[in-house]
């Protein structure tokens, strides 16, 4: 299911029967090490692919300023930035920079991409965490209900809801939420991470973190905290709905499986209550696939974050990515895309390790 599993299979010669036995027992450390080393080629391949793809069409300066400058001026700018060198030289130059944490310099506002990443990355992280919370809080209990009421009407309704959650694009969910809760009822703000007044209060804090909620807590001001939280509600729901639907389905399918296991019958015969059967005995093993799928979900959520942030003008990486794309600043676009790729690769690693810790069958 996860990338780690599949790539791992590649490194062992094709003798499926012999493999697990040979490495059975322990091997967790070795698994983690191999899995960690596998990040390197993944990230490396992605960087190479993205770099050359982005250069097929030309250099970033022509893309950003083409048509606005004379060819001479353009050539001069290109020479200054080193884009007239052979592509392969530029590539190794870029790789060298990345190794030192230098992802290049955005062309439109002359900011180092690494700085963009630290400034806006926190906002995206915050949003994704909220969304995961929404997804778990909504998805897991509803999935349990659906599994318990299999093939009866609550299950039918919930399955339709889950499919609807998948079928509705994040930005349309966002639009509907805005129409109802911001414009219609006026309960929640339309866009942004914080109101202007809250931002002024927030400015007084010493060494601010990128996480507004933490800062608001540190300030200890209730009004600021409510302000920040209020701004987060709609984006978190918009992004969380999609993943919540997937969790719902996963929990449902897996719990239907575990509820039919013999150990459930045996526990029931010992007098374990139905509630405890559902929430502990059947749920726990059904949660393992969620952990593994989480890895893929993070990639999807980052994609969704780009859309959510654009919808709610949430000042994160995704919002900036869209802004830089509009400005045709492809250095910044490339940098942000690379960074997100690294994040995805790292989180996949973490997820695989967690999965291996929970389920010994994953390790070989």
């Amino acid at each position, binding site marked *: 299911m996860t990338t780690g599993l599949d790539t791992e299979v590649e490194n062992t010669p094709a003798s499926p029967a012999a493999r697990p036995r040979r490495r059975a027992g322990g091997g967790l450390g070795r698994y983690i090490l191999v899995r960690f080393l596998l990040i390197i*080629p993944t990230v490396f391949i992605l960087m190479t692919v993205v770099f050359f793809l982005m250069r097929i069409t030309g250099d970033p300066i022509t893309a950003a300023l083409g048509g606005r400058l004379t060819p001479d001026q353009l050539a001069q700018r290109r020479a200054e930035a080193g884009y007239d060198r052979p592509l392969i030289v530029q590539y190794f130059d870029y790789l060298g920079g990345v190794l030192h944490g230098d992802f290049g310099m955005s062309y439109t506002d002359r900011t180092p991409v690494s700085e963009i990443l630290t400034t806006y990355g926190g906002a995206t992280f915050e949003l994704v965490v909220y969304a995961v919370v929404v997804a778990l809080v909504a998805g897991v209990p509803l999935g349990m209900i659906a599994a318990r009421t299999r*093939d009866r009407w609550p299950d039918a309704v919930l399955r339709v809801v889950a499919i609807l959650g998948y*079928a509705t694009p994040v930005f*349309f969910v966002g639009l509907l939420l805005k129409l109802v809760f911001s414009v219609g009822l006026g309960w929640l703000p339309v866009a942004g991470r914080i109101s202007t007044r809250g931002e002024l209060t927030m400015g007084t804090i010493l060494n601010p973190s990128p996480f507004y909620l933490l800062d608001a807590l540190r300030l200890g001001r209730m009004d600021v905290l409510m302000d920040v939280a209020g701004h987060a509600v709609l984006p978190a729901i918009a992004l969380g709905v999609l993943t919540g639907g997937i969790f719902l389905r996963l929990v449902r399918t897996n719990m239907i499986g575990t509820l039919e296991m013999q150990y459930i019958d045996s526990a029931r015969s010992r007098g374990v209550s139905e509630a405890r059967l559902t929430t502990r005995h059947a749920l726990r093993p059904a949660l393992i696939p969620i952990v593994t799928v989480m890895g893929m979900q993070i*990639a*999807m959520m980052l994609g969704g974050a780009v859309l959510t942030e654009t919808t709610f003008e949430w000042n994160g990486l995704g919002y900036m990515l*869209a802004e830089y*794309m509009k400005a045709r600043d492809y250095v910044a676009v490339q940098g942000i895309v690379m960074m997100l790729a690294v994040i*995805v690769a790292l989180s996949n690693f973490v997820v695989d390790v967690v999965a291996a810790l929970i389920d010994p069958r994953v390790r070989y």
Partner: protein
Amino acid sequence: MTLSNPVPPGEGGADDLSVESATVAATARSPWYLRLPVVSHLRRSVGLQRGMLVTGLVLVIGLLLTALFAPLLAPYGFADTGVDGVKFGGQQPPSAEHLLGTTVTGFDVLSRVIWGTRTAVAVMVCAVVASLFLGVALGLLSGYVGGWLDRVLVMLADAIYAFPSLLLAIVMSIVISGGQSGAWGGILAAAISITVVFVPQYFRVIRAEVVRLKAEPFVEAAKVIGTGHRRVMGTHLLRNSTRTLPLIFTLNSSEAILTLAALGFLGFGIEPTSASEWGYDLNRAMSDATSGIWWTGMFPGLAIVAAVLGVTLVGESINDLNDPRLRTRKKRSRAQKKVAA
């Protein structure tokens, strides 16, 4: 059933079998069109599953028909801002002339929603067909040949698969069209961007199956009697490794619509004057929503939901019906209920 399979679907085959027992005759007499994939699934389905499948089919057929007859159905062209020199006016609420109102630029919302089906269907078909062929071919080759080619391809596919698909599609659309483009250019750009995202999925599924099948006795037997590589791949491996394809196929179709809309929403789609695209319309509608204008965003959004929902429902139901465990268990429980009642 098995008897009728080798016989080409004609009257002769059905007549011969009509003397068989009642059940066999019933299946054999069913004409060829009842044995088509979706139709046979429909006949097999029951209860909730049938409801889902029927709803999905209705939506999909509606989508296809709308796309086909868009010029007849749409009251105006997708880029019309007025008729006979009279401007529609921007942001007009729904009225008799404009059933769903007009957008900020003065387009008729209903017409744009209807024309948008064409773009969606075109991208969906191009993307899914292209990735199906590419992915299956690469998967077969990689799984069968093995060695270095296999390792490199798996590495690449894994790297691409782990990457946020929307970001990859964005990069691809920058590469192909440099952002905005005309109707067919934009449709192809979107389709290719989506193809790149999907190929690894087909690749992985087919490759895994081929690696498994390669060790099966029937493949070895074929090799022993001197069957060529091409025939082993094309016949023995390909035909046996396509079980899961319909599910990925439908999932990808719906994802293609979503990715197209997302690209359009981010401003990396098709120019509004060269084709109608729902994602772009939703992008323009975002600022309308703040001032309480709901009709510009609501209808393109609902169109996306309906299209994706239809395709997903069909895919889900077919998957459930193809899974013998899910299906038989359902029927048995039903039968038991009937007995009990």
